[in-house]
């Protein structure tokens, strides 16, 4: 159901600062909206996003209902070595998704 879009450069020179763009499809229901009959729609959001580079955490974010639906997050890192980026999204109602991307550093 859920799907992630990751944008990481395939190749980089050692020491380059690279931009990583991530998007996870998710409704991010705030828990503050009501239906026409007045019932509160329960909160359903992603609460945490983590990025690891060859196992080491390089970026983490706590998300709140004020983050728009389909959370889009971009950040930077220094390309140090060839390897893998692992991305993890954790949220309400047991939501848990992972994605990964490889990079070759010359």
């Amino acid at each position, binding site marked *: 159901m859920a799907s992630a879009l990751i944008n990481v450069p395939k190749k980089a020179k050692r020491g380059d600062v690279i931009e990583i763009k991530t998007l996870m499809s998710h409704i991010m229901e705030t828990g503050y909206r009501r239906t026409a009959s007045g019932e509160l729609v329960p909160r359903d959001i992603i609460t945490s996003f983590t990025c690891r580079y060859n196992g080491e955490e390089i970026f983490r974010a706590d*998300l*709140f209902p*004020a983050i728009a639906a389909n*959370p889009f997050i*971009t950040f930077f890192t220094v390309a140090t070595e060839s390897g893998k980026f692992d991305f993890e999204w954790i949220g309400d109602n047991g939501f848990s998704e992972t994605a990964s991307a490889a990079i070759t550093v010359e």
Partner: protein
Amino acid sequence: MRKSEGSTRRRFLKFAGSAAVIGAVPVVSLRPVGATPDTMAAAIRTVVGTAAVQTGKVKLDIPPLVENGNTVPMTVSVASPMTANEYVKSIHVFNEKNPQPNVGNFYLGPRAGRAQISTRIRLADSQKIIAIARLSDGSFWSATAEVVVTLAACTEEVI
């Protein structure tokens, strides 16, 4: 006689004109009480503790006028060399009038290379946004932006 007629008409037009101006001011819709400047200050205190927050170093890029509060692009960057000894530890974003004062906390490190993050946020009202950066030396720096929202997010009815 004619003169007085003219003056009443003029007075009427003047009145009608001012009423139209008042009518043009958007009517404040009823929403559940949300975050206030006070709750935002409290949320900021839980992050910074008793440390002083200085203005500067942080750049908060957000459009000053947005049509749709459901998705507002935002970029926060911090002037920092991002070396092993001097780097940005985290960036925290707060709002004044959403139902909740927090927007997001972003944890970086010396490996980030550049202290900059982007995301898309929701705004329930025209309000002030504050981005605060925690530096490796323990100091806090901030930037503030005012955003005018014409269509609010968060609290509309689900159909």
